[in-house]
């Protein structure tokens, strides 16, 4: 336990040192110069990147959470494996192939990129929604039903609060992945910060590459933190404390 702690501490220290060293190097070599030379262009690419992510992830949340709720209802139980398998299939296809497929149907441009990112975000959210709802102890639902809660009240008062942390974790994973994957949108004319990343690669231009890649990474880190904050706010206190005390007693 203690050795594990020390190891993880050391690894973290090394990582942070590398990150700080990288930024020192990048700044001293004026690697972010592109951002300051073309601030208008940067804002445009960043805006497009955010647009790609928020629309595709937003639609994925609006699809996967209700779908996960629906197929965990008793009357749909039997179709659960089918839907999960279909969604799993979607995830095993590489993101590039999803992009190519979307392009095949919708041509190049923003629309195809959003559809591809949307499909790619569905599964983590769906899986975590189902896992979260399945983890609610059956006796709990039974007690609630037996006391006269309607099915909707059982869902909103008991199941969703218990599943909240799993669902939000799924959304967080999906959005963070989505931010990285959105860089590929450039390949089918979707725009975003991928434009600088791929241009930089093609032209061996480190400055352009890094001016695109570092903001994408920072965005992913920021969004990760944002969702951890949301999780803290939305997960009921009792469940948070119970989990904490369960972890401490291990």
């Amino acid at each position, binding site marked *: 336990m203690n050795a594990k702690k020390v190891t993880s501490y050391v690894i973290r220290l090394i990582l942070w040192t590398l990150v700080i060293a990288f930024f020192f190097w990048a700044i001293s070599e004026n690697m972010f110069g592109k951002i300051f030379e073309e601030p208008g262009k940067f804002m445009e690419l960043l805006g497009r990147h955010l647009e790609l992510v928020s629309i595709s992830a937003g639609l994925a949340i609006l699809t996967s959470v209700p779908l996960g709720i629906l197929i965990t209802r008793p009357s749909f139980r039997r179709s659960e494996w089918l839907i999960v398998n279909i969604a799993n299939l979607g995830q095993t296809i590489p993101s590039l192939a999803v992009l190519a497929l979307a392009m095949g149907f919708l041509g190049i441009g923003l629309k195809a990129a959003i559809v591809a990112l949307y499909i790619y975000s569905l599964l983590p959210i769906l899986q975590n929604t189902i896992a979260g709802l399945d983890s609610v102890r059956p006796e709990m639902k039974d*007690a609630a039903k037996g*006391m006269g809660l309607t099915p909707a009240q059982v869902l909103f008062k008991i199941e969703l609060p218990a599943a909240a942390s799993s669902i939000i974790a799924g959304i967080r994973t999906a959005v963070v992945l989505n931010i990285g994957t959105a860089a590929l949108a450039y390949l089918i004319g979707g725009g975003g910060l991928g434009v600088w990343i791929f241009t930089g690669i093609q032209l061996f231009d480190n400055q352009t590459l890094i001016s695109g890649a570092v903001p994408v990474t920072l965005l992913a880190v920021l969004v990760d933190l944002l969702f951890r904050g949301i999780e803290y706010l939305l997960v009921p206190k009792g469940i948070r404390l119970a989990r904490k005390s369960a972890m401490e007693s291990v």
Partner: protein
Amino acid sequence: MIEFNDVTKIYGGDVKAIDDISMTVEDGEFVILLGPSGCGKTTLLRMVNQLESISQGDIKIQGQNVREMDKIKMRRNTGYVIQSNGLFPNMTIEDNTMIVPDLLGWDRKKKKDRFNYLMDLVGLNPDDYRKRFPHELSGGQQQRVGVARAMAADPPVMLMDEPFGALDPIIREKVQDEFLAIQKEVKKTILFVSHDIDEAVRMGDKIALLRDGKVQQFDRPSELLIRPNNDFVSDFVGKDRVLRSMSLYSVEDLVTTFGLKNKEDTITDTKEISIDTSLRIAISMLLNQEADQLVIVDRQGQAKGSLTFDLIEKFLHQEVKGA
């Protein structure tokens, strides 16, 4: 009053979990559904609040067929406690306890008063527990809250499925005693599932002993112990059933039966026994004491006579084996 009329439950077309049960539970009666695992106790209980459908026959509460009632309304008006308490981890103890009153739209003040009353009833300090969460409570405390929650809207009928089954023996006995004291005060009509003969004998006004979905005997505990209907019943209650039945009689019953009068010449070197003591305890006291007799004293401390093995045996023949 809960009436079961020719009630049958068939699962999945061929598993007959309940087989043509008819019985009546009177108002204020505490009835134990007893029997080995898989005999249908839970199924029978859950048909009452319609968590399981009734395949044949019908169940009536206060003369009304449960099938025709609004399920949600009926469940809110029926207490339900299960073994693993089912407290909701996302809610405080107060919110857990007041969930049904909340659904019924009680106002804040009324809910708070009710919470305070119920916590006092189950022996927990309301202010200490109000804002705490279930995981912070011990098993026994959680189960007390589970009982309080089931009584929150003061339902006339309570359904309890092995509510104390998960507690360790010492705590269980304590919670059982507390619950009996509560029942004395509130006088609910209770259906209580148990697989433990000792619990059934301790708690029940009557016991329905089930086997393979059929009622083998529906009787007062003493009758079940003393006059079992068939071999299954006598096997289930155990070889020590006569000794067990002794816990249902007090020294006072014996005093009344034999009409023992006040006694002046108290033998001072023997131990005293109060007339409230059960005969089961009296027997073990005689065994432990290695004394031939105990002096029976009434509630005023007045000696009533001496208690001996012979006297108990005489009582046993008359009350238990006889008739």
